[in-house]
């Protein structure tokens, strides 16, 4: 049986936030008598993650995804509740715990700006107490997986964003962690760089059985990497489960564009009980529920003279977008 590597129980986090009225008067008031209020950004959440799982955290900006990730890796103290990651209380930041995890943030970098990435790799290797031989071996292996070579010897400031992100990954993985926290790792990357990074993460997960917790606003990252998603809405979990179940729930119907041999056939099809979205001459678009798609298509093909047909999936971004604004999903 696969063991839980992350166990979160009734976790909450509050921050003191100050607010300021607009204008000069507001500025003076804010300077002398700052109004602060406690804001609960994470509200009583519980979940478990199994070893080797890739879990995507979905939510709108400010929903609390990054705060959850930062509490899981021990950067932020929780206000209430408990977290166990790999058997450790993360916020104690014990050496053995830190050797087990890594955090990669798409918008922040740890590489030394003026030096080639290789210098940062060896610095990290010494921090993780790796000898030169072992470090060299790991750098070679990871650079092959990431398909970077010459870039390792060029100052970071002269690398493209994609090359820099690959180097960031290598720097963050040199100690071979078994839990990866990734906060928008593909931010700002072009389509090819995004695809390469996803390919690498899949390969890394397969080869090392590492657990990956990922936040991303690029739906392709989520759909190609995560079987399971945790949707966060205003600090609470609105859905925790399989991604395909969520997609089925959110888009229960498919749109089918049917091109009939004649306009008469299209009229006949429109009057046969299907929900019609639109009809232009011999082309008709109908909506069919996912569960009856096979039988409905069979009926159409047997009873009407069809030239061609196209099944349209609703755009994934549109579907997932619904999650970001809804509070609860019972599936």
């Amino acid at each position, binding site marked *: 049986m696969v063991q839980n590597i992350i166990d979160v129980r009734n976790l909450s986090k509050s921050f003191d936030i100050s607010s300021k009225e607009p204008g000069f008067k507001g500025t003076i008031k804010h300077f002398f008598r700052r109004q602060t209020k406690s804001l609960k950004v994470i509200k009583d959440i519980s979940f478990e993650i199994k070893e080797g799982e890739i879990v995507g955290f979905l939510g709108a900006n400010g929903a609390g995804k990054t705060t959850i990730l930062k509490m899981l890796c021990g950067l932020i103290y929780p206000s209430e509740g408990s977290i166990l990651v790999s058997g450790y209380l993360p916020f104690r*930041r014990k050496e053995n715990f830190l050797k087990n995890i890594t*955090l990669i943030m798409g918008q922040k970098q740890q590489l030394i700006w003026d*030096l080639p990435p290789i210098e940062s790799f060896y610095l*990290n290797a*010494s921090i993780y107490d790796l000898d030169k031989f072992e470090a060299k071996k790991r750098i070679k292996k990871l650079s092959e997986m990431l398909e970077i070579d010459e870039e390792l010897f060029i100052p970071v400031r002269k690398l493209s964003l994609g090359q820099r992100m690959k180097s960031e990954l290598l720097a963050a993985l040199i100690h071979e962690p078994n839990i990866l926290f990734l906060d928008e790792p593909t931010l700002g990357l072009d389509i090819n760089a995004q695809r390469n990074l996803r390919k690498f993460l899949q390969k890394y997960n397969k080869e090392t059985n590492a657990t990956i917790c990922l936040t991303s606003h690029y739906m392709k990252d989520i759909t190609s990497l995560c079987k399971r998603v945790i949707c966060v809405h205003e600090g609470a979990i609105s859905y925790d489960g399989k991604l395909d179940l969520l997609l089925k729930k959110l888009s229960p119907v498919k749109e089918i564009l049917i091109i009939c041999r004649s306009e008469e056939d299209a009229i006949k099809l429109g009057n046969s009980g299907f929900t019609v979205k639109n009809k232009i001459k011999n082309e008709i678009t109908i909506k069919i529920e996912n569960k009856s798609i096979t039988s409905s298509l069979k009926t159409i093909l047997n009873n009407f003279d069809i030239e061609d047909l196209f099944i349209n999936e609703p755009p994934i971004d549109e579907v997932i977008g619904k999650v970001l604004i809804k509070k609860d999903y019972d599936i």
Partner: protein
Amino acid sequence: MNLRKYLKVYKKFLHTSLASELEYKTNILVDLITAILSLVGSIFLLSIFFQNNGYIGGWKFEQALIIQAIYTILNGITNTWFNPNLTEIVKHIREGTLDFVLLKPIDSQFFISLKKINPSGFLEIMLGFFLLLFCIRINQINLSLSFLSLSLITISCSICILYSLWFFISTTTIWFVKTWNAIEVLRSFLYIGRFPLNSFSFSLRIFFSIFIPIAFITTIPSEVFLGLSQLWKILVEVIVASVFLITSRKFWLFALKFYSSASS
């Protein structure tokens, strides 16, 4: 604490920060010229103060020059280690890159206090030592083992006090986010350390001994050089340095509990 690992990491820190600095040759050259001109300017200023009256606060020009030498060494240490690292803490906290430091299996205070060095500060340290050797000669100071150990102890204590004060102020960034001004005020107070404590009024002497212990930083080591220091003063300096160092450490660990990281 694994000392071997920390030495290995420090060696890497030295290597990477030297390599980073050497990327900008002109900048190093400008820094070196600035250090020399700054020392020449300070000695010139000091000589003007002593022009009308041979003594200030009971100190002769040749004796006051020792304070200048110790100040130059400490300023060199400040520019080599404290300035590049401790001002970076504010940046780390404001931009949230402290996250990377805290997630490394190494002491975070060690990491943020020693990661960078500014090689041009070394020249200032060397200039300070040369000036100190010159002062030892003109003041006809006898070099004995006890004298050398006491000098070493008091200068080490000065470094600890200076570091702790600076680190303490930088740590408050976790709550106040911007503390550049406080660090600038501390640096301005350090300039005062170029003059003997006795040259100030009684109230200022109390202020610079108790509230901001600048007096301990330069005057007591200088008194040791001139054989003027009493043992109790040295003991007080050791105690002050230890209290400052321990407090700065405890304060850092306490402050980290309030670190909320920058938003993404």
